[in-house]
């Protein structure tokens, strides 16, 4: 069948002379698009003022598409990871494109006919499947094209996920304004038009990914690099481990805890960044100036999160994955301690600490595929990565819950300013220390989990 052939792995084996530097932009076209999810908040007020006007649960209802989308990201990455590895990146990127764009189109129709449940179904459920499959779709391909620099390669793609919201947030806001979805006479039709344009533009933008993606020919390696003579790190696997076997190893679960607690520590600050800044520096300037500066604080944390993904992940290619996580978790714990001790005495120290913590948060996401490659080989690294992302789902709930719950309790107890966050920071230090210990416990995977080389060869022939 012509369509099936077009999506098959054999059709996208790179011809001689194909530049591997065409693969990062293919991956970025997917990640920059799906990273839009973190800009969902721009739709909340317009939806609350139009389609959900007068609804007492508008705040919760407008958060549902995003929450469901992130849950579906983890679930679909875990469920479809093996299919992504076996069917290849073009299939995965095309499915991600269809789901993500369809999510917007279903939402557009839902808003146009006044059915909000279609926004939850479209953006949250269908779009969320696109997020999960899209997130893992280029990872194993990048690792195979850049065996000499896997941290840098996956860092570029996963930086794109962080950068997606930077593009979408101002773009969506200006479109909502242009279509009349904001202001005193806001119209729901303006939101529908905005969703429609998003669906079409993202479909076109993401198409570059599945059209351009190629897998390296069997036996290909970068010029001057030889897998047999390349320097092996202490943790680097000499065999390949299947996704089914990987979850039976302690290494997988130690890394799961490492990722979960590293994300928890970062997301706690990220989710409450604007009120946190205002609580720390209220009274240092006029209220309006502090509010504007708080918006700047949110922006600079996004920048740190994004830069951390490429800088620290690339650094891990030099210093090794275990040392990189020692830094993210160990230095991260020390930075939280500094924040707790210094409080609001120095704005410069506060900013430096918060930016470094957020850079380690982003780096934790970006370095983990290369860490998995080191431990489990390249055979089903995409599927293993998908299963590991369930740690993100838990951390996404845990981090904000800790910081918000404690801040609310402290406020009720009559505290204010930095005192609202001291206990949260100490809990984050504890989580980071547990993560640090788990990272120390990671040893090379036992050879009994390795795939027999004949089975692997026949599986690859069958692909």
């Amino acid at each position, binding site marked *: 069948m012509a369509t099936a052939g077009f999506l098959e792995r054999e059709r996208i084996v790179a011809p001689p002379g194909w530049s591997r530097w065409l693969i990062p932009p293919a991956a970025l076209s997917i990640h920059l698009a799906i990273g839009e999810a973190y800009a969902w908040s721009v739709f909340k007020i317009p939806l609350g003022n139009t389609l959900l006007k007068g609804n007492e649960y508008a705040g919760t209802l407008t958060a549902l598409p995003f929450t469901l989308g992130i849950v579906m990201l983890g679930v679909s990455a875990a469920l479809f990871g093996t299919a992504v590895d076996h069917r290849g990146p073009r299939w995965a990127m095309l499915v991600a494109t269809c789901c993500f764009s369809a999510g917007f189109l279903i939402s557009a129709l839902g808003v146009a006919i006044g059915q909000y449940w279609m926004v939850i179904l479209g953006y949250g459920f269908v779009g969320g499947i696109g997020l999960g499959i899209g997130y893992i779709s280029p990872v194993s391909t990048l690792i195979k094209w850049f065996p000499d620099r896997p941290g840098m390669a996956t860092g570029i793609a996963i930086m794109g996920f962080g950068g997606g919201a930077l593009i979408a947030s101002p773009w969506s806001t200006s479109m909502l304004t242009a279509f009349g979805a904001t202001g005193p006479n806001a119209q729901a039709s303006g939101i529908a038009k905005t969703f429609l344009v998003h669906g079409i533009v993202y479909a076109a933008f993401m198409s570059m990914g599945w059209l351009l993606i190629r897998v390296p020919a*069997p036996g*290909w390696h970068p010029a001057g690099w030889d897998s047999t003579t390349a320097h092996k790190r202490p943790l680097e696997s000499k065999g390949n481990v299947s996704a089914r076997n990987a979850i039976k190893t302690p290494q997988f679960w130690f890394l799961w805890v490492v990722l979960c607690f590293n994300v928890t520590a970062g997301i706690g600050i990220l989710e409450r960044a604007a009120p946190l800044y205002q609580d720390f520096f209220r009274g240092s300037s006029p209220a309006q100036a502090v509010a*504007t500066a708080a918006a700047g604080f949110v922006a600079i944390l996004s920048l740190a999160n994004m830069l951390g993904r490429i800088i620290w992940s690339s650094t891990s290619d030099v210093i090794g994955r275990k040392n990189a996580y020692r830094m993210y978790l160990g230095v991260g714990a020390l930075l939280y301690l500094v924040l707790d001790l210094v409080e609001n005495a120095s704005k410069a120290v506060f900013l430096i600490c918060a930016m470094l913590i957020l850079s380690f948060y982003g780096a934790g996401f970006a370095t983990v595929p290369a860490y998995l490659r080191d431990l489990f080989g390249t055979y089903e690294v995409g599927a293993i990565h998908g299963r590991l992302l369930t740690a993100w789902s838990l951390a996404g709930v845990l981090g904000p819950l800790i910081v918000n719950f404690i801040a609310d309790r402290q406020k009720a107890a009559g505290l204010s300013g930095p005192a609202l966050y001291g206990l949260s920071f100490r809990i984050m230090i504890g989580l980071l220390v547990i993560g640090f210990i788990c990272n120390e416990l990671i040893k090379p995977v036992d050879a009994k989990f390795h795939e027999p080389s004949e089975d692997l060869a026949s599986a690859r022939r069958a692909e």
Partner: protein
Amino acid sequence: MSDTTSTGLSPARLVLTVIAWLWVLVPFLYGVWQLLIKVVPLFSG
């Protein structure tokens, strides 16, 4: 089989590479620019 790109890209592939990177870099730089505009007030107060 080793990488043949070290011997140089064909003109068509070079154009494709430039277009592919521009495709993603232009919107990305727009996002970074918008972000930097928001960051300025953090240091002006």
